[in-house]
């Protein structure tokens, strides 16, 4: 999946570099969804800085797009800029703090903000209990580990695992129901 995304982003980027406004718009919109995920995973989903960082990164990606080498993959390049903006943000807020290592390998994730999927997904999620929905969102959409999601809700990793399993089962049945209609 990551390779498909890489190919798609790269093709949009290449066309955007050539002056194709539609491709550039597509690139920035798709990237915005990825960036929202990337920053909220590291700052918390409710952090008010997330959208600022998304915008700052988009401006940098757009304004400095001439530094992209067309022979090179897109993902590490974009990740480098996002990571730089994140580090810069941390440095401004808390100078001297250690910066966690992260890799571009998990920078792009599938199924983020796909406008055709999201409404169905929301409807299906609406049928779950509050806790179950939160677990699905945290782990499956936001990419937290079970331990992290458990900590967020004050339950053990095991409990999070069981809860998520039940939620996914319920969700599968619910999605099947949506398709039949």
């Amino acid at each position, binding site marked *: 999946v990551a390779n498909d995304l890489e190919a798609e982003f790269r093709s949009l980027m290449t066309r955007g*570099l050539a*002056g194709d406004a539609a491709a550039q718009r597509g690139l920035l919109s798709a990237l915005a969804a990825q960036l929202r995920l990337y920053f909220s995973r590291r700052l918390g989903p409710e952090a008010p800085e997330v959208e600022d960082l998304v915008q700052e990164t*988009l401006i940098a990606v*757009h304004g400095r797009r001439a530094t992209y080498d067309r022979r090179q993959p897109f993902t590490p390049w974009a990740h480098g800029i996002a990571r*730089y903006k994140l580090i810069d943000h941390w440095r401004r807020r808390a100078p001297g703090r250690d910066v966690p290592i992260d890799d571009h390998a998990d920078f792009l994730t599938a199924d983020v903000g796909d406008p055709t999927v999201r409404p169905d997904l929301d409807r299906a999620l609406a049928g779950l209990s509050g806790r179950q929905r939160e677990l699905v969102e945290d782990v499956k959409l936001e990419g937290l580990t079970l331990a992290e999601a458990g900590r967020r809700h004050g339950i053990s990793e095991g409990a999070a695992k069981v809860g998520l399993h039940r939620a996914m089962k319920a969700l599968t049945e619910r999605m099947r129901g949506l398709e039949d209609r």
Partner: protein
Amino acid sequence: LKTDELIESLVHELRPAGAGPQAWLALGAAAGGAVAIACVLTLLGPRQDLADAAGGLVFWTKAGYTILLGAAGYWLSERLARPATSPRGGVLLASAVFTAMLCLAVVQLAGAPPDMRMHLWLGHSWTFCSRAVLLLSLPVLAVTLAVLRRQAPTRPMWAGAAAGLFSGGVGATVYGLSCPESAAPFLVTWYTLGVLGSVVLGALAGRFVLRW
């Protein structure tokens, strides 16, 4: 401002992307190099035997040393101007060039009569050389940092150091138009020291200047 609106405003009347770092760095070096050459010619004057020397191997060994250091710096600057690139090639080139000159210096010192060795090392102008190289590298350093600021250097200190090596190489090459010293022990010490000064200055400046 909503992100969607931001994207609209960014792509409004989109034109093809401009030139990448290579072109800007080369252009900047040409401009800064011209200033340095003008300084050398007006303030120091070219070396008396420039026309004769320029045909010889000794002259080009020296010029080759500083040109290659500058080339490594250009390479590094171009790499470090972009996110997610490896600076390995440039570092290897610079190390190889320095090591080669160091070997030549050792050979020259070993082959010289003992009472000549000090002269090979200090020449006539060792007190002046490094400072002149550093000063002459400043125009290119300033322009290169300005160029890098508009690229996307994600490692500001290293990018600054690369700019310093690039401009140091150019500054040293330009100074070579005026300075008649040619002994390898002299070059590998005092020229290198001047370039190193430029590298350190670039790294320090990069930390502050290369924020974007």
